[in-house]
C-alpha cells in the first residue's frame, strides 16, 4: 500500500525547512523501499508545529511536528505510517489537536487539508457549491444574500459588504470592476496569505460571485510583492480555473463572463488603503484619493468598483453555499460571522484561529496562544496591525467584536494579534509607530506627512527627558491633529498606538 504523507507547501512551513523535510522523507522512503506519495498541502495554520507532517491512516490523518531534518529517520524507525505511535513529535489525529478542534472554522474549513491548486480537491470539499448556486440567482438576489449574512468588510474598516455591493450594482456604467485588496501589510497578519496560498480557489470563487452580483466582468487581485509564494500559487490556480471554465467568457456554463488577473504591488504599505490601491493599479504613485466619491461609484479607471479584502471575498462562497442565515448565526450582536484571528509575536502557539465574534481576548492569548514563547509575562498586545492600539493586560477581558473594541478606543482591524512580553519598551514602540508613518506616508496630506516626522522628534525629546511635561502635551496635541486632519487611516490612526502606549505605559516614557 502506498504511504500518503502530507508536507505543507506554504510560507511559514517553508520558512522553517518544509522543503528539505519533504526531500528527506522521500529519500528515506526510497532507502527503506517504502512506496510513498508526498502531497504538498497547505498549512493548517498551527504555525508553532510547522513543519507539520501528516500521514494518512484508516482512522484519519496523524500529525507530527515540528519536524526537523534530524527527526525524519526516527519517524520512520517509530513506524509513523501507522499514525498512533510513540514519538516525541507525535500529535495524534490532527483534527483532534485542541488548538484546531476548539476553533469555529467556516472560511478556513478547507485550509491545509488539500493540495491548494487541485480543482478536484477543491470540488470534493464543497468547492464551487456557492458559485453553482449563484449562477441560478439574479444579481439582486445575490446582493440580498450577502446583506442578510451581515458580512462586514474584513480588511479593517468593517463596512457592510452587501451595502457596498448594492451601490455598485445600482451604478450605471459601461464597465465595472471587482478589486481584491490583497496588500496585507499589517504586521501580525497572515490570514489573507493563507487563503491565497492554501485555498486560492475560495478567493477566486468569491470574486466571481461578486462579479455576478454587481455586473462586473473584470477582476484584479492587488497582491503585495512580499508574498512570492502566494503569487505563484494564485497564478497557477487562475490558470487552471480558466482551463476548467470557471473564468473566462462562459463561467460554469452560465454564458456570463469574468476575467481575473493578479497585479503585484511594490512594497508600499499605503497601497493597502483602497483609493491608493486603485491609483497603484492604474499605474500611478499610490497617493490617497479624497472620498467622496466612493470607489463604489468612481473607482478603478473612474468606473464603479467593488474593493474588498481577501477574507471578505473568501467568506462569500460559504455564505452562498450554506445560506446567509448559517453565516449570520455565528457572531455577536452587530458583528456577524467569524473572524480569522492571527496570533503572532511572542507566543508559544502562534497561528491562525478562526472564531465567531464575541469571545474574550484573554482566551485567545492564553488558551490558544499558550502565553509567551519566552516564558515571561505578557506586557502589551497590539491588535489590528501597526495602526491598532496597544492594550495592557487589564484590558484583556474585552470581547472580540468590532463595537467592544471601538468602545475602548481600539480596533479589531484585520484580526492580527501581536503579543509582547515584559522586555518591551513602549516608548520605543510608540516611536516606531511614528517612524513607520514617516516611511510609509504617501505624502498627500500635511498632518500625516509632517506630523509623523514631528512625532518622532517629540518622542525622542520625551525619551531624552527634554522638557517632558510640555512635550507630552505637544505629542497629545499632535496626535489629535493627525486623527482629525488626515485624509486616510494611515495618518488618522498612527496616533492610536502612540496614545495608548502613553496612556497605559507612561513609566516607559521616563528617561
Amino acid at each position, binding site marked *: 500500500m502506498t504511504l500518503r504523507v502530507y508536507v505543507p507547501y506554504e510560507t511559514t512551513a517553508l520558512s522553517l525547512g518544509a522543503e528539505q523535510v519533504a526531500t528527506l522523507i522521500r529519500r528515506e522512503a526510497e532507502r527503506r523501499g517504502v512506496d510513498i506519495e508526498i502531497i504538498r498541502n497547505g498549512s493548517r495554520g498551527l504555525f508553532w508545529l510547522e513543519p507539520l507532517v501528516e500521514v494518512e491512516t484508516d482512522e484519519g490523518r496523524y500529525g507530527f511536528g515540528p519536524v526537523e531534518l534530524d527527526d525524519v529517520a526516527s519517524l520512520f524507525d517509530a513506524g509513523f505510517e501507522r499514525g498512533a505511535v510513540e514519538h516525541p513529535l507525535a500529535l495524534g489525529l490532527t483534527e483532534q489537536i485542541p488548538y484546531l478542534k476548539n476553533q469555529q472554522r467556516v472560511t478556513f474549513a478547507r485550509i491545509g487539508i488539500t493540495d491548494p491548486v487541485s480543482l478536484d480537491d477543491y470540488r470534493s470539499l464543497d468547492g464551487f457549491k456557492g458559485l453553482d448556486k449563484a449562477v441560478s440567482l439574479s444579481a439582486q438576489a445575490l446582493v440580498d444574500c450577502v446583506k442578510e449574512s451581515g458580512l462586514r468588510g474584513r480588511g479593517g474598516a468593517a463596512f457592510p459588504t452587501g451595502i457596498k455591493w448594492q451601490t455598485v450594482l445600482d451604478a450605471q456604467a459601461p464597465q465595472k470592476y471587482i478589486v481584491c485588496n490583497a496588500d496585507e501589510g499589517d504586521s501580525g497578519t497572515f490570514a489573507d496569505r493563507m487563503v491565497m496560498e492554501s485555498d486560492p480557489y475560495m478567493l477566486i470563487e468569491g470574486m466571481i460571485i461578486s462579479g455576478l452580483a454587481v455586473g462586473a466582468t473584470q477582476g484584479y487581485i492587488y497582491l503585495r510583492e512580499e508574498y512570492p509564494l502566494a503569487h505563484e500559487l494564485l497564478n497557477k490556480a487562475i490558470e487552471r480555473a480558466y482551463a476548467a471554465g470557471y473564468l473566462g467568457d462562459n463561467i460554469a456554463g452560465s454564458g456570463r463572463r469574468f476575467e481575473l488577473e493578479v497585479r503585484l504591488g511594490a512594497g508600499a504599505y499605503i497601497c493597502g488603503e483602497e483609493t491608493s490601491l486603485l491609483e497603484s493599479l492604474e*499605474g500611478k504613485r499610490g497617493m490617497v484619493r479624497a472620498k467622496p466619491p466612493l470607489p463604489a461609484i468612481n473607482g478603478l479607471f473612474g468606473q464603479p468598483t467593488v474593493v474588498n479584502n481577501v477574507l471578505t471575498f473568501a467568506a462569500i462562497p460559504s455564505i452562498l453555499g450554506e445560506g446567509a442565515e448559517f453565516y449570520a448565526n455565528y457572531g455577536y450582536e452587530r458583528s456577524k460571522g467569524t473572524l480569522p484571528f492571527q496570533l503572532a509575536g511572542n507566543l508559544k502557539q502562534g497561528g491562525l484561529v478562526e472564531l465567531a465574534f464575541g469571545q474574550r481576548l484573554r482566551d485567545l492569548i492564553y488558551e490558544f496562544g499558550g502565553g509567551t514563547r519566552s516564558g515571561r509575562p505578557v506586557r502589551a498586545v497590539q491588535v489590528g496591525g501597526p495602526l491598532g492600539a496597544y492594550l495592557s493586560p487589564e484590558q484583556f477581558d474585552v470581547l472580540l467584536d468590532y463595537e467592544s473594541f471601538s468602545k475602548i478606543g481600539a480596533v479589531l482591524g484585520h484580526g492580527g494579534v501581536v503579543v509582547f512580553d515584559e522586555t518591551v519598551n513602549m516608548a520605543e514602540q510608540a516611536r516606531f509607530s511614528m517612524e513607520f508613518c514617516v516611511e510609509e506616508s504617501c505624502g498627500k496630506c500635511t498632518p500625516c506627512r509632517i506630523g509623523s516626522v514631528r512625532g518622532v522628534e517629540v518622542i525622542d525629546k520625551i525619551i531624552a527627558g527634554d522638557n517632558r511635561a510640555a512635550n507630552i502635551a505637544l505629542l497629545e496635541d499632535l496626535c489629535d491633529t493627525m486623527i482629525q486632519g488626515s485624509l486616510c487611516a494611515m495618518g488618522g490612526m498612527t496616533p492610536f498606538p502612540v496614545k495608548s502606549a502613553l496612556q497605559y505605559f507612561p513609566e516607559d516614557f521616563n528617561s
Partner: protein
Amino acid sequence: MDETQAGVLNTIEDLVGSIKHKPGALLPILHSIQDHFGYIPDPAIGVIASHLRCTEADVHGVISFYHYFRSQKPGRYVIEVCRAEACQAQGGREFEQYVRDKLNIGFDQTTPSQDISLKAVYCLGNCATGPSIRVGDDIKGRMNPAKFDRLVDELTTFKLELK
C-alpha cells in the same frame, strides 16, 4: 545577457512592448524590467515614457514612490530583514542590529564584495515564527545569529542545496 547599451535598450523595448497594452501598465512594466535586470536601468525611463505617452518625470515619480523598485544594481543577493512589530516582539530589533554589524552595512547598502545588499521590509506575513528575513523568493523564519552566520557563509561561498 547582452549587456551592451544597445542590447539593454532592445530588451527594455521588448519588455515594454509586450505589456504596454494592459490597462494601468506601468507597474507590471517596472516589475518585468526589475525581474530581468535586478533593477531599473536609467535608459528604461525614456523608453517607458515614450511608449506610455507620459513624461519621464511621471515614470521617475512612480519608481521613486515604491520601496521595491531600485535604480541601482544590487549585490548578488538581496537580504530583506523584517522590521515590523511582530518580529520586534520576537527579538527582531536585536537581530536586525546583529545583521547590520555582521555585514557592516546599513539598509539600502551593498557589501564591498558586491555579494549582499541589505533592505528593510515591513512584514513578510511570517509573523508567528519571526524574526523573519527574505532572500530572493525564500522566506526564512525563527532567525537567530547562528542561522544568519550559516546563511551568509552559504551565500558567499557556494549555494548549498539538499536535493
